[in-house]
């Protein structure tokens, strides 16, 4: 057999389809939804979102029961080095499945009664989730780029899903232009890295130079190469767009405000978490030899991000923009964790733990928001939350727990998440970053409590004519009660007892 054939045989043998069964399952489910739309009679179409949610629940339960160890592929490269399965990847898979489930549930609330096709929303959400899961495990720039773009193009459609609203289209257009700009910048970085690491005249070059391992081996030999440094900066800039770090955060407030609530939640949680999963991989496994440039760069990003996010959020009265701006601040704290993970290995677990607490807190808040703003673009102001706790004590309670956790009030989960990151930063000797982060947390308490105050302590000043047209409060279905209650309860419990989750993360 010729050499080429042998090589081909080896690559074919590394196509372990069993390793990506969860992603395949999601893809099949997504296509099933479209088929059901064709074959089910019109009056049965309400069943399709339920099929999507139940299908994802089945995948999630199956994953947790039988696939938690990555189906036995942990520590292996599959598909010719395209994918690498590690512990973080498995946690992120569960993370994305859970967030997609919650997004689908929010979508059933917020799309109800709107004149838009419903099935496609769930289809795209599932495809995006599958791509996110692959992204978190990618080990090669080609797969990295393809899955990143699948996510991004999916989000273009989701952001302007309510296309009869001009503000949704405007948000979608802004997201599209800036996302395409950032992916072009990142691609140029990838091209430079590919070119320099594949240069046959340089020592340590590789014929497969877009593979993360091969690139890392090359950078170990040439950490001072100018082209490689420019390439690294451009790639980090592309990822910084995803996590909305300063100065790539300009899209956040507008897009969050224009998109419908479930999509905002999806962007805020899953897209940001994917950015961090990718950043962890890139920083720890690829660019680690260039620490001397990487650490000051990321530190500067982190400081500016924390300050910008918190200061811009201080005067914000629109809740969606507030979530976006405070989300920028959270990205800053997470960046501190990523930097710390270069020095303290367990900081990686702290970053993932923070992401989990951020998921629980954010979805609790977004869940309440989805109930309160039936028409998107209305009901988003802080004034709309007056009297919430008096009229809907359940929603008020969930909101307080969610916001308290995001603000980092002990004993809620968000406090433990911040504490772990700060301890890691202290152990890594990042005192300046620590000081800025603590300052940021203090600022954040101001605006989070402004929101809590509006919902709980402030009362609507009733004038007689306004009392006559008192606003309607939404009804909460029992399934929503169950889900929001679980999120709030998990936030409280995780604050006291980290047990199995920290065991799982400790083994990363």
């Amino acid at each position, binding site marked *: 057999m010729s050499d080429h054939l042998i090589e081909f045989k080896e690559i074919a043998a590394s196509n372990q389809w069993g390793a990506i069964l969860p992603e395949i399952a999601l893809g099949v489910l997504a296509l099933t939804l479209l088929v059901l739309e064709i074959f089910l009679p019109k009056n049965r179409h309400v069943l399709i979102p339920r099929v999507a949610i139940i299908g994802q629940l089945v995948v999630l339960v199956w994953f947790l029961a039988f696939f938690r160890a990555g189906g036995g592929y942990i520590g292996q490269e599959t598909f010719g080095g395209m994918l690498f399965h590690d512990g973080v990847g498995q946690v992120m898979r569960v993370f994305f499945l859970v967030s997609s489930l919650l997004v689908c549930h929010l979508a059933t609330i917020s799309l109800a009664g709107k004149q838009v096709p419903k099935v496609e929303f769930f289809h795209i959400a599932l495809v995006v989730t599958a791509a996110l899961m692959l992204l978190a495990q990618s080990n090669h720039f080609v797969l990295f780029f393809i899955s990143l773009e699948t996510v991004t*193009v999916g989000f*273009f459609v989701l952001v302007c899903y309510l296309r009869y609203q001009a503000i949704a289209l405007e948000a979608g257009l802004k997201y599209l232009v800036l996302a395409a700009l950032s992916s*072009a910048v990142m691609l140029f970085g990838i091209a430079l890295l590919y*070119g320099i690491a594949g240069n046959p005249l340089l020592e340590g070059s590789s014929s*497969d130079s877009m593979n993360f391992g091969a690139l890392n081996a090359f950078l170990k030999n040439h950490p001072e190469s100018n082209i490689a440094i420019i390439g690294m900066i451009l790639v980090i800039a592309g990822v910084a767009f995803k996590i909305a770090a300063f100065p790539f955060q300009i899209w956040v407030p507008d897009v969050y405000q224009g998109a419908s609530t479930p999509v905002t939640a999806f962007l805020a949680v899953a897209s940001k978490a994917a950015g961090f999963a990718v950043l962890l991989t890139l920083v720890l496994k690829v660019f680690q030899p260039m620490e001397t440039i990487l650490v000051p760069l990321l530190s500067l990003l982190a400081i500016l991000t924390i300050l910008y996010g918190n200061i811009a959020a201080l005067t914000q009265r629109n809740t969606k923009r507030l979530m976006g701006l405070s989300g920028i601040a959270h990205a800053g704290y997470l960046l501190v964790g990523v930097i710390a993970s270069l020095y303290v290995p367990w900081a990686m677990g702290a970053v993932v733990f923070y992401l989990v607490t951020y998921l629980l807190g954010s979805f609790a808040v977004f869940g309440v928001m989805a109930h309160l703003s039936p028409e998107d673009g209305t009901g988003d102001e802080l004034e709309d939350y007056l009297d919430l706790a008096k009229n809907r004590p359940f929603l008020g309670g969930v909101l307080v727990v969610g916001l308290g956790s995001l603000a980092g009030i002990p004993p809620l989960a968000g406090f433990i998440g911040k504490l772990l990151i700060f301890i890691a930063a202290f152990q890594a000797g990042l005192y300046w970053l620590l000081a800025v982060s603590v300052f940021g947390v203090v600022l954040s308490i101001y605006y989070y409590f402004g929101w809590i105050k509006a919902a709980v302590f402030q009362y609507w000043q009733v004038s007689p004519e306004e009392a006559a047209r008192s606003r309607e409060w939404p009804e909460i279905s029992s399934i929503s009660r169950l889900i929001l209650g679980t999120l709030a309860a998990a936030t409280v419990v995780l604050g006291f007892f980290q047990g199995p989750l920290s065991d799982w993360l400790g083994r990363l």
Partner: protein
Amino acid sequence: MNIGIHEFLATSALLFTFGFVGVLVRRNVLVVYMCLELMLNAVTLALVGFSRFNGTMDGNVFVFFIITVAAAEVAVGLAIVVELFRRRGTVMLPALNHLKH
């Protein structure tokens, strides 16, 4: 004249800069799209140049993926622009400021 990797890279960097500046300063959405495409094509040129110089096919193959993704992006993007034009009657960026600041 012998065309080597430096000429490829210089052209690519120049195109990329044109595209980047264009995205930042132009006001018409369609022109902004064209500038984005220019940036992607600059990357494509760099990849092809490196691929030839390094003697590996990875860069050439990657180019096909980039073209595919760019097509998907523009398909969605133009749909948004058409829909937006129907609602607002304009495709100029300064007019798209209805989301409050």
